[in-house]
Protein backbone atom coordinates (compact mmCIF):
# COMPACT_ATOMS: atom_id res chain seq x y z
CA UNK A 1 0.00 0.00 0.00
CA UNK A 2 2.79 2.37 0.96
CA UNK A 3 4.47 1.60 -2.34
CA UNK A 4 1.34 2.48 -4.24
CA UNK A 5 1.03 5.83 -2.50
CA UNK A 6 4.64 6.92 -2.95
CA UNK A 7 4.63 5.80 -6.52
CA UNK A 8 1.41 7.67 -7.08
CA UNK A 9 3.13 10.75 -5.69
CA UNK A 10 6.06 10.26 -8.06
CA UNK A 11 3.75 9.72 -10.96
CA UNK A 12 1.62 12.71 -10.06
CA UNK A 13 4.76 14.86 -9.91
CA UNK A 14 5.66 13.58 -13.35
CA UNK A 15 2.13 14.26 -14.50
CA UNK A 16 2.29 17.78 -13.16
CA UNK A 17 5.49 18.35 -15.09
CA UNK A 18 3.49 17.20 -18.10
CA UNK A 19 5.06 17.33 -21.49
CA UNK A 20 7.93 19.42 -20.14
CA UNK A 21 9.26 16.18 -18.74
CA UNK A 22 10.90 15.17 -21.97
CA UNK A 23 12.31 18.64 -22.62
CA UNK A 24 15.47 18.93 -20.45
CA UNK A 25 18.48 17.11 -21.79
CA UNK A 26 18.74 13.77 -19.98
CA UNK A 27 21.52 13.70 -17.46
CA UNK A 28 24.13 11.04 -17.75
CA UNK A 29 24.23 9.08 -14.58
CA UNK A 30 27.36 7.14 -15.35
CA UNK A 31 30.76 7.65 -13.84
CA UNK A 32 31.64 9.34 -17.10
CA UNK A 33 29.39 12.23 -16.16
CA UNK A 34 32.57 13.67 -14.72
CA UNK A 35 34.03 13.80 -18.20
CA UNK A 36 32.15 16.99 -18.88
CA UNK A 37 34.19 18.79 -16.21
CA UNK A 38 31.35 21.25 -15.94
CA UNK A 39 30.49 23.17 -12.80
CA UNK A 40 29.18 20.99 -10.00
CA UNK A 41 25.45 20.44 -10.09
CA UNK A 42 23.93 21.50 -6.80
CA UNK A 43 20.99 19.12 -6.73
CA UNK A 44 22.11 15.76 -8.05
CA UNK A 45 25.11 13.74 -7.08
CA UNK A 46 25.56 11.60 -10.15
CA UNK A 47 28.98 10.14 -9.57
CA UNK A 48 28.58 9.38 -5.93
CA UNK A 49 24.88 8.56 -5.64
CA UNK A 50 24.38 5.90 -3.02
CA UNK A 51 27.98 6.02 -1.86
CA UNK A 52 27.11 6.62 1.77
CA UNK A 53 24.30 4.10 1.70
CA UNK A 54 26.72 1.42 0.55
CA UNK A 55 26.40 1.15 -3.19
CA UNK A 56 27.53 -2.45 -3.09
CA UNK A 57 23.99 -3.23 -2.09
CA UNK A 58 22.42 -0.83 -4.54
CA UNK A 59 21.45 -1.98 -8.02
CA UNK A 60 23.16 -0.10 -10.88
CA UNK A 61 21.24 2.77 -12.49
CA UNK A 62 21.37 2.83 -16.30
CA UNK A 63 22.27 5.81 -18.44
CA UNK A 64 18.99 7.47 -19.51
CA UNK A 65 20.02 7.92 -23.18
CA UNK A 66 20.62 4.23 -23.59
CA UNK A 67 17.49 3.33 -21.69
CA UNK A 68 15.46 5.65 -23.92
CA UNK A 69 16.76 4.01 -27.09
CA UNK A 70 16.06 0.53 -25.76
CA UNK A 71 12.57 1.30 -24.52
CA UNK A 72 11.73 3.08 -27.78
CA UNK A 73 12.77 -0.01 -29.75
CA UNK A 74 10.88 -2.33 -27.44
CA UNK A 75 7.69 -0.26 -27.49
CA UNK A 76 7.86 0.05 -31.27
CA UNK A 77 8.21 -3.72 -31.51
CA UNK A 78 5.16 -3.99 -29.28
CA UNK A 79 3.04 -1.96 -31.70
CA UNK A 80 4.36 -3.95 -34.63
CA UNK A 81 2.67 -6.92 -32.98
CA UNK A 82 5.79 -8.76 -32.10
CA UNK A 83 5.58 -10.03 -28.58
CA UNK A 84 7.20 -7.94 -25.92
CA UNK A 85 9.01 -11.03 -24.74
CA UNK A 86 10.77 -11.20 -28.07
CA UNK A 87 11.56 -7.52 -28.17
CA UNK A 88 13.15 -7.30 -24.77
CA UNK A 89 13.92 -10.64 -23.31
CA UNK A 90 16.45 -10.93 -20.55
CA UNK A 91 16.74 -14.41 -19.17
CA UNK A 92 14.90 -12.95 -16.22
CA UNK A 93 13.81 -16.13 -14.60
CA UNK A 94 15.36 -18.98 -16.46
CA UNK A 95 13.88 -21.83 -14.47
CA UNK A 96 16.31 -23.13 -11.89
CA UNK A 97 16.42 -26.89 -12.30
CA UNK A 98 18.92 -27.71 -9.57
CA UNK A 99 16.84 -28.10 -6.39
CA UNK A 100 19.86 -27.49 -4.13
CA UNK A 101 20.56 -24.21 -5.94
CA UNK A 102 16.89 -23.25 -5.75
CA UNK A 103 17.01 -23.84 -2.00
CA UNK A 104 20.12 -21.65 -1.66
CA UNK A 105 18.47 -18.90 -3.71
CA UNK A 106 15.57 -19.01 -1.28
CA UNK A 107 18.00 -18.80 1.63
CA UNK A 108 19.81 -15.87 0.02
CA UNK A 109 16.49 -14.04 -0.37
CA UNK A 110 15.83 -14.69 3.33
CA UNK A 111 19.32 -13.44 4.17
CA UNK A 112 18.63 -10.23 2.22
CA UNK A 113 15.60 -9.65 4.44
CA UNK A 114 17.71 -10.17 7.56
CA UNK A 115 20.70 -8.00 6.62
CA UNK A 116 18.64 -5.22 5.04
CA UNK A 117 19.70 -5.74 1.41
CA UNK A 118 16.06 -6.44 0.52
CA UNK A 119 14.84 -3.14 1.98
CA UNK A 120 17.76 -1.21 0.43
CA UNK A 121 17.26 -2.61 -3.06
CA UNK A 122 13.51 -1.87 -2.93
CA UNK A 123 14.33 1.62 -1.68
CA UNK A 124 16.70 2.28 -4.58
CA UNK A 125 14.25 0.90 -7.12
CA UNK A 126 11.53 3.14 -5.76
CA UNK A 127 13.63 6.30 -5.60
CA UNK A 128 16.00 5.92 -8.57
CA UNK A 129 14.82 3.37 -11.11
CA UNK A 130 11.12 4.18 -11.07
CA UNK A 131 11.88 7.85 -11.72
CA UNK A 132 13.57 6.83 -14.98
CA UNK A 133 10.86 4.34 -15.86
CA UNK A 134 8.07 6.90 -15.41
CA UNK A 135 10.02 9.37 -17.57
CA UNK A 136 10.24 6.69 -20.28
CA UNK A 137 6.54 5.84 -19.99
CA UNK A 138 5.81 9.56 -20.39
CA UNK A 139 7.38 9.42 -23.84
CA UNK A 140 4.78 6.88 -24.94
CA UNK A 141 1.69 7.87 -22.98
CA UNK A 142 0.55 11.49 -22.99
CA UNK A 143 -0.07 12.20 -19.31
CA UNK A 144 -1.72 15.55 -20.06
CA UNK A 145 -4.67 13.81 -21.74
CA UNK A 146 -5.42 11.51 -18.81
CA UNK A 147 -8.46 11.88 -16.57
CA UNK A 148 -8.11 11.62 -12.80
CA UNK A 149 -9.25 8.00 -12.75
CA UNK A 150 -6.93 7.21 -15.67
CA UNK A 151 -4.03 8.56 -13.64
CA UNK A 152 -4.85 6.28 -10.71
CA UNK A 153 -5.21 3.29 -13.00
CA UNK A 154 -1.85 4.03 -14.60
CA UNK A 155 -0.29 4.45 -11.14
CA UNK A 156 -1.60 1.03 -10.16
CA UNK A 157 -0.15 -0.54 -13.31
CA UNK A 158 3.19 1.14 -12.61
CA UNK A 159 3.15 -0.04 -8.98
CA UNK A 160 2.72 -3.57 -10.24
CA UNK A 161 5.66 -3.16 -12.62
CA UNK A 162 7.73 -1.77 -9.75
CA UNK A 163 7.10 -4.86 -7.63
CA UNK A 164 8.14 -7.09 -10.53
CA UNK A 165 11.30 -5.06 -11.09
CA UNK A 166 12.20 -5.37 -7.41
CA UNK A 167 11.67 -9.13 -7.52
CA UNK A 168 13.78 -9.46 -10.68
CA UNK A 169 16.70 -7.54 -9.20
CA UNK A 170 16.49 -9.37 -5.86
CA UNK A 171 16.39 -12.74 -7.63
CA UNK A 172 19.38 -11.76 -9.77
CA UNK A 173 21.43 -10.89 -6.67
CA UNK A 174 20.19 -13.94 -4.80
CA UNK A 175 21.15 -16.23 -7.67
CA UNK A 176 24.68 -14.81 -7.82
CA UNK A 177 25.01 -15.18 -4.05
CA UNK A 178 23.61 -18.71 -4.10
CA UNK A 179 26.00 -19.81 -6.84
CA UNK A 180 29.03 -18.98 -4.73
CA UNK A 181 27.92 -19.78 -1.22
CA UNK A 182 27.11 -23.00 0.57
CA UNK A 183 23.95 -23.64 2.57
CA UNK A 184 25.79 -23.67 5.94
CA UNK A 185 27.42 -20.33 5.06
CA UNK A 186 24.07 -18.75 4.23
CA UNK A 187 22.51 -20.09 7.43
CA UNK A 188 25.48 -18.84 9.44
CA UNK A 189 25.11 -15.32 8.01
CA UNK A 190 21.38 -15.26 8.67
CA UNK A 191 22.19 -15.72 12.35
CA UNK A 192 25.20 -13.36 12.30
CA UNK A 193 23.27 -10.46 10.73
CA UNK A 194 20.18 -10.90 12.88
CA UNK A 195 21.09 -8.14 15.35
CA UNK A 196 19.62 -4.81 16.40
CA UNK A 197 22.87 -3.15 15.31
CA UNK A 198 22.40 -4.46 11.76
CA UNK A 199 18.77 -3.28 11.72
CA UNK A 200 19.99 0.12 12.88
CA UNK A 201 22.57 0.17 10.06
CA UNK A 202 19.85 -0.59 7.53
CA UNK A 203 17.74 2.20 8.99
CA UNK A 204 20.67 4.66 8.78
CA UNK A 205 21.22 3.68 5.14
CA UNK A 206 17.55 3.95 4.23
CA UNK A 207 17.35 7.42 5.72
CA UNK A 208 20.59 8.70 4.26
CA UNK A 209 19.94 12.32 3.29
CA UNK A 210 22.42 12.33 0.42
CA UNK A 211 24.53 15.10 1.96
CA UNK A 212 27.62 12.92 2.26
CA UNK A 213 27.15 11.84 -1.36
CA UNK A 214 26.94 15.37 -2.70
CA UNK A 215 29.93 16.52 -0.63
CA UNK A 216 31.85 13.50 -1.94
CA UNK A 217 30.98 14.57 -5.46
CA UNK A 218 32.48 18.00 -4.78
CA UNK A 219 35.64 16.31 -3.48
CA UNK A 220 35.90 14.26 -6.64
CA UNK A 221 35.37 17.18 -8.99
CA UNK A 222 37.89 19.21 -7.02
CA UNK A 223 40.41 16.38 -7.32
CA UNK A 224 39.82 16.29 -11.07
CA UNK A 225 40.48 19.98 -11.47
CA UNK A 226 43.65 19.64 -9.40
CA UNK A 227 44.88 16.73 -11.50
CA UNK A 228 44.18 18.44 -14.82
CA UNK A 229 45.75 21.69 -13.62
CA UNK A 230 48.86 20.04 -12.19
CA UNK A 231 49.30 17.97 -15.31
CA UNK A 232 48.85 20.82 -17.77
CA UNK A 233 50.83 23.42 -15.84
CA UNK A 234 53.87 21.15 -15.74
CA UNK A 235 54.17 20.79 -19.48
Amino acid at each position, binding site marked *: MKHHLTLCAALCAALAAGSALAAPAPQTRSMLAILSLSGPDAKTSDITAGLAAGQGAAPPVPVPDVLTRQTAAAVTALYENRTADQAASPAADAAVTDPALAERIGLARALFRVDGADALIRHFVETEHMKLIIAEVARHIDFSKLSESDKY*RLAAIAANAQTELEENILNLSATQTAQLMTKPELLQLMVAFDTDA*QRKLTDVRLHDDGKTDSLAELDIRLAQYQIVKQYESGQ
Partner: protein
Amino acid sequence: MRLIYSLAVLGLALAAVPAGAQEIVAAAPVDRAIAAGDVAAVAVAQINDKADAAETQQKVDLYKQLMELNGVTQNIRNVIAATKTATRLVIIDRAGVDKLTPEQDARYNQIADNVLSATQAELIDAVASAQAQNFTTDEIHQLITANASPAAAKYNAVKFLTPDDNATAVQNYMVDAVVKIVKTWSQAQTG
Protein backbone atom coordinates in the same frame (compact mmCIF):
# COMPACT_ATOMS: atom_id res chain seq x y z
CA MET B 1 30.94 16.25 18.75
CA ARG B 2 28.73 17.97 16.22
CA LEU B 3 31.44 20.56 15.71
CA ILE B 4 34.05 17.94 15.01
CA TYR B 5 31.73 16.25 12.56
CA SER B 6 31.04 19.41 10.61
CA LEU B 7 34.73 20.31 10.65
CA ALA B 8 35.64 16.99 9.19
CA VAL B 9 32.95 17.10 6.56
CA LEU B 10 32.89 20.77 5.68
CA GLY B 11 36.47 21.74 4.98
CA LEU B 12 35.17 25.11 3.93
CA ALA B 13 34.03 25.95 7.45
CA LEU B 14 37.53 25.39 8.82
CA ALA B 15 38.62 28.99 8.41
CA ALA B 16 35.53 30.53 10.00
CA VAL B 17 35.21 28.45 13.16
CA PRO B 18 38.48 29.22 14.99
CA ALA B 19 37.92 32.94 14.39
CA GLY B 20 34.50 32.69 16.02
CA ALA B 21 35.89 30.82 19.01
CA GLN B 22 38.56 33.49 19.43
CA GLU B 23 35.95 36.21 19.59
CA ILE B 24 34.01 34.54 22.38
CA VAL B 25 37.14 34.33 24.55
CA ALA B 26 38.10 37.93 23.88
CA ALA B 27 34.61 39.21 24.61
CA ALA B 28 34.59 37.76 28.15
CA PRO B 29 35.14 40.42 30.82
CA VAL B 30 38.75 40.02 31.95
CA ASP B 31 38.47 41.92 35.23
CA ARG B 32 35.70 39.82 36.77
CA ALA B 33 36.61 37.96 39.94
CA ILE B 34 36.58 34.28 39.18
CA ALA B 35 35.65 31.77 41.87
CA ALA B 36 37.90 28.72 42.18
CA GLY B 37 34.88 26.51 41.48
CA ASP B 38 34.36 28.21 38.12
CA VAL B 39 37.92 27.49 37.08
CA ALA B 40 37.57 23.87 38.17
CA ALA B 41 34.29 23.53 36.28
CA VAL B 42 35.90 24.92 33.14
CA ALA B 43 38.86 22.57 33.56
CA VAL B 44 36.55 19.57 34.00
CA ALA B 45 34.51 20.65 31.01
CA GLN B 46 37.67 20.86 28.93
CA ILE B 47 38.77 17.40 30.02
CA ASN B 48 35.30 16.07 29.16
CA ASP B 49 35.44 17.76 25.77
CA LYS B 50 38.79 16.13 25.09
CA ALA B 51 37.45 12.76 26.23
CA ASP B 52 34.39 13.20 23.97
CA ALA B 53 36.59 14.12 21.04
CA ALA B 54 38.85 11.12 21.64
CA GLU B 55 35.86 8.80 21.94
CA THR B 56 34.33 10.19 18.74
CA GLN B 57 37.59 9.69 16.87
CA GLN B 58 37.88 6.15 18.22
CA LYS B 59 34.38 5.36 17.00
CA VAL B 60 35.13 6.81 13.57
CA ASP B 61 38.29 4.68 13.33
CA LEU B 62 36.37 1.59 14.41
CA TYR B 63 33.66 2.38 11.87
CA LYS B 64 36.31 2.54 9.15
CA GLN B 65 37.23 -1.06 10.00
CA LEU B 66 33.59 -1.99 9.47
CA MET B 67 33.50 -0.15 6.13
CA GLU B 68 36.56 -2.08 5.00
CA LEU B 69 34.79 -5.36 5.76
CA ASN B 70 31.28 -4.66 4.47
CA GLY B 71 32.26 -3.29 1.06
CA VAL B 72 31.59 0.43 1.57
CA THR B 73 35.32 1.25 1.31
CA GLN B 74 35.72 -1.06 -1.67
CA ASN B 75 32.97 0.88 -3.37
CA ILE B 76 34.73 4.17 -2.67
CA ARG B 77 37.92 2.71 -4.17
CA ASN B 78 35.95 1.78 -7.28
CA VAL B 79 34.65 5.33 -7.62
CA ILE B 80 38.20 6.67 -7.23
CA ALA B 81 39.51 4.25 -9.86
CA ALA B 82 36.75 5.29 -12.25
CA THR B 83 37.61 8.93 -11.60
CA LYS B 84 41.25 8.27 -12.46
CA THR B 85 40.26 6.61 -15.74
CA ALA B 86 37.79 9.35 -16.64
CA THR B 87 40.22 12.16 -15.84
CA ARG B 88 42.87 10.57 -18.06
CA LEU B 89 40.35 10.82 -20.91
CA VAL B 90 39.74 14.47 -20.07
CA ILE B 91 43.47 15.16 -20.29
CA ILE B 92 43.78 13.31 -23.60
CA ASP B 93 40.79 15.19 -24.95
CA ARG B 94 42.11 18.58 -23.85
CA ALA B 95 45.55 17.85 -25.30
CA GLY B 96 43.92 16.89 -28.61
CA VAL B 97 45.91 13.66 -28.89
CA ASP B 98 44.89 10.04 -29.31
CA LYS B 99 46.73 8.71 -26.33
CA LEU B 100 49.42 9.62 -23.85
CA THR B 101 53.04 8.64 -24.40
CA PRO B 102 54.45 6.23 -21.78
CA GLU B 103 56.28 9.15 -20.15
CA GLN B 104 53.14 11.28 -20.06
CA ASP B 105 51.17 8.34 -18.74
CA ALA B 106 53.66 7.80 -15.94
CA ARG B 107 53.47 11.46 -15.05
CA TYR B 108 49.68 11.37 -15.14
CA ASN B 109 49.63 8.33 -12.85
CA GLN B 110 51.90 10.02 -10.38
CA ILE B 111 49.85 13.21 -10.23
CA ALA B 112 46.50 11.41 -10.17
CA ASP B 113 47.54 8.90 -7.51
CA ASN B 114 48.87 11.69 -5.35
CA VAL B 115 45.69 13.77 -5.53
CA LEU B 116 43.24 10.88 -5.44
CA SER B 117 44.76 9.11 -2.46
CA ALA B 118 43.95 12.22 -0.43
CA THR B 119 40.44 12.33 -1.90
CA GLN B 120 39.89 8.66 -1.10
CA ALA B 121 40.90 9.22 2.53
CA GLU B 122 38.54 12.21 2.68
CA LEU B 123 35.59 10.26 1.31
CA ILE B 124 36.15 7.36 3.70
CA ASP B 125 36.44 9.80 6.58
CA ALA B 126 33.29 11.65 5.52
CA VAL B 127 31.14 8.51 5.42
CA ALA B 128 32.61 7.19 8.68
CA SER B 129 32.14 10.52 10.48
CA ALA B 130 28.57 10.89 9.24
CA GLN B 131 27.48 7.37 10.17
CA ALA B 132 29.57 6.38 13.22
CA GLN B 133 27.70 8.86 15.42
CA ASN B 134 24.53 6.78 15.04
CA PHE B 135 26.11 3.80 16.79
CA THR B 136 27.61 2.94 20.15
CA THR B 137 31.09 1.43 20.24
CA ASP B 138 29.47 -1.89 21.21
CA GLU B 139 27.18 -1.84 18.21
CA ILE B 140 30.05 -1.13 15.82
CA HIS B 141 31.92 -4.07 17.38
CA GLN B 142 28.86 -6.28 16.79
CA LEU B 143 28.69 -5.21 13.15
CA ILE B 144 32.39 -5.90 12.68
CA THR B 145 31.99 -9.36 14.21
CA ALA B 146 29.07 -10.15 11.88
CA ASN B 147 31.20 -9.17 8.86
CA ALA B 148 34.45 -10.77 10.00
CA SER B 149 33.80 -14.45 9.15
CA PRO B 150 35.08 -16.05 5.91
CA ALA B 151 31.44 -16.59 4.89
CA ALA B 152 30.73 -12.87 5.31
CA ALA B 153 33.85 -11.95 3.33
CA LYS B 154 32.60 -14.14 0.49
CA TYR B 155 29.11 -12.65 0.74
CA ASN B 156 30.43 -9.08 0.64
CA ALA B 157 32.75 -9.88 -2.29
CA VAL B 158 29.95 -11.32 -4.47
CA LYS B 159 28.43 -7.83 -4.75
CA PHE B 160 31.48 -6.63 -6.70
CA LEU B 161 31.99 -9.60 -9.00
CA THR B 162 29.99 -8.80 -12.15
CA PRO B 163 29.09 -5.11 -12.19
CA ASP B 164 28.76 -4.89 -15.99
CA ASP B 165 26.55 -7.97 -16.27
CA ASN B 166 24.39 -6.65 -13.46
CA ALA B 167 24.05 -3.25 -15.11
CA THR B 168 22.93 -4.90 -18.35
CA ALA B 169 20.47 -7.17 -16.56
CA VAL B 170 18.95 -4.33 -14.54
CA GLN B 171 18.61 -2.23 -17.67
CA ASN B 172 16.80 -5.04 -19.45
CA TYR B 173 14.45 -5.42 -16.49
CA MET B 174 13.71 -1.72 -16.70
CA VAL B 175 12.97 -1.87 -20.43
CA ASP B 176 10.62 -4.75 -19.64
CA ALA B 177 8.90 -2.65 -16.99
CA VAL B 178 8.31 0.23 -19.42
CA VAL B 179 7.00 -2.14 -22.11
CA LYS B 180 4.72 -3.84 -19.62
CA ILE B 181 3.27 -0.57 -18.37
CA VAL B 182 2.66 0.75 -21.89
CA LYS B 183 1.23 -2.59 -23.05
CA THR B 184 -1.09 -3.07 -20.07
CA TRP B 185 -2.22 0.52 -20.42
CA SER B 186 -2.97 0.32 -24.12
CA GLN B 187 -4.80 -2.97 -23.67
CA ALA B 188 -6.90 -1.44 -20.90
CA GLN B 189 -7.77 1.46 -23.20
CA THR B 190 -8.82 -0.62 -26.18
CA GLY B 191 -10.26 -3.60 -24.29
